[in-house]
């Protein structure tokens, strides 16, 4: 799922200090799982902001809500009746949710409350790590199910580079060498022969390099 982390509260205060009535809108999707933007985080942020503005002697009304998802019009519509009484909305959804809210409520400032980081997994409680770069053309079948685009710092198709040491990446000892993982896995699968065949240059047209992307499924269109 999409992973995000809370923005520093100072940054949020700076974004909203010109307003008097703010709605904090969470999302019950991905950002709830990574504990950055669900109902719990809405409550925590709202109470921290109330304390700050009270101490600062500034009137600030803060509303709280969390939508099922902010990437679907059906759920965003739920704000239609209530949003009018707020000057602006701080969305704790990923960047997609923030933008979709802004598209639907054209005259309302929609501000991001989280930094959207990557597509990843919950590795252990409280630890989320990246797995997918959404390149649009999955090569996991040939790399033992471990993605070199997302997990090699140089996104090498023919790694590991000369900086791999004790299973760690040259960039940072906290990062596992993606190609060490691929090698270990191919070895376990008895597929090391795949490792010796040069992988030709990738087509990045399906990735961000091709411009903003779209998927159309005709059968689902009304």
């Amino acid at each position, binding site marked *: 799922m999409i992973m995000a982390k809370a923005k520093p509260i100072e940054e949020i205060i700076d974004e909203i200090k010109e307003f008097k009535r703010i709605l904090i809108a969470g999302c019950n999707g991905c950002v709830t799982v990574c504990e950055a933007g669900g109902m719990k985080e809405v409550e925590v942020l709202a109470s921290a902001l109330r304390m700050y503005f009270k101490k600062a002697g500034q009137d600030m009304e803060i509303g709280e809500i969390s939508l099922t998802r902010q990437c679907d019009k059906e759920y965003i519509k739920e704000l239609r009746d209530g949003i009018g009484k707020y000057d602006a909305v701080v969305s704790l959804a990923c960047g997609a949710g923030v933008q979709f809210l802004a598209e639907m409520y054209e005259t309302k400032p929609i501000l991001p409350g989280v930094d959207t980081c990557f597509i990843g997994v919950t590795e252990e409680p409280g630890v989320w790590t990246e797995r997918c770069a959404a390149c649009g053309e999955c090569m996991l079948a040939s790399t033992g199910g471990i993605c070199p685009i997302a997990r090699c*710092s*140089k*996104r*090498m*198709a*023919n*790694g*590991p*580079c*000369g*900086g*791999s*040491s*004790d*299973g760690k990446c*040259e*960039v*940072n000892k906290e990062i596992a*060498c993606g190609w*060490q993982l691929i*090698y*270990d896995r191919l070895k376990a699968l008895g597929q*090391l022969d795949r*490792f*010796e*065949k*040069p*992988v*030709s*240059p990738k087509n*990045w047209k399906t990735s961000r390099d091709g411009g903003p992307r779209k998927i159309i499924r005709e059968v689902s269109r009304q």
Partner: protein
Amino acid sequence: MSTTTPSKLQKILAAGHFGVTTECGPPRSCDGGVVEEKAKHVAGHVDAINVTDNQTAVVRMCSLASCIRLRIMGLEPVLQMVTRDRNRIGLQSDLLGAASFGINNVLCLTGDHQSFGDHPEAANVFDLDSTQLIQTVKMMRDEAKLLSGAELKTCPQMFIGAAENPFADPFDVRVSRLAKKVAAGAQFIQTQCIYNLDKFKKWMQGIVDRGLHEKVHILAGFTPMKGVGMAKYMKNRVPGMDVPDDIIKRLQGVPKEKQSDEGINICIEHIQELKEVKGVAGFHIMAIEWEEKVPEIVERAGLYPRPKVD
């Protein structure tokens, strides 16, 4: 090794001589004279001079312009190209430009990650990796085509090189990875600096066992130590570097003012030892900001005079 190019380095290696190359790092300035001065120190003692491409991700004068300067001096440059900073459009364009100046050697590298350099906040490219750059040069040269399939009226005549680090992990993969680069089209290899001879020999045995040394010329890489400080830095701070404690102890065993001489002695002894190792086709001497020492190393290692080829 099949395709013959006008490269002098290729001719020397093909004739069965030990090849000798060195490395010249361009300056962080637009003073082209710096490159020329470095090259003058080594010109008569090596077969070709590598010019690094923003090494360690620090901005320097570009490798291509520096190589052109060497070519104009009548020297034999090896154009180093990393895939970190340019996509396939930029890389192929620079290859055509290099070939237009009679630059006939290229070393295909992925490059250090930009987090090591002076612009760690930069975006990286990595459209291709080193193996794919090898494939690209080979396609341009042997099929007269760009990666797009578009035809080239004249092709870059490049002797294709790659790097390999026998000391990086996983060790088991290092021979396979070389095989992969050879399959992609690499004709010569310049290795990472060697200090751990036992490990290098073990790697080389793996190369020889598979007959890869008959398909690619392997130039063993050396960087002489200037002192204990450099040795410790290389051991602890440079990714993928294997500096045994014996080297550090030996440098510590001589007075500080003699440590650089001892570093040169170690380098020469190691070259002489590896001359006897099957599969070693030559030496790549990377005397970092110490180019003036290269002639002494080459002479004392018994690699001088350099052979003449047509």
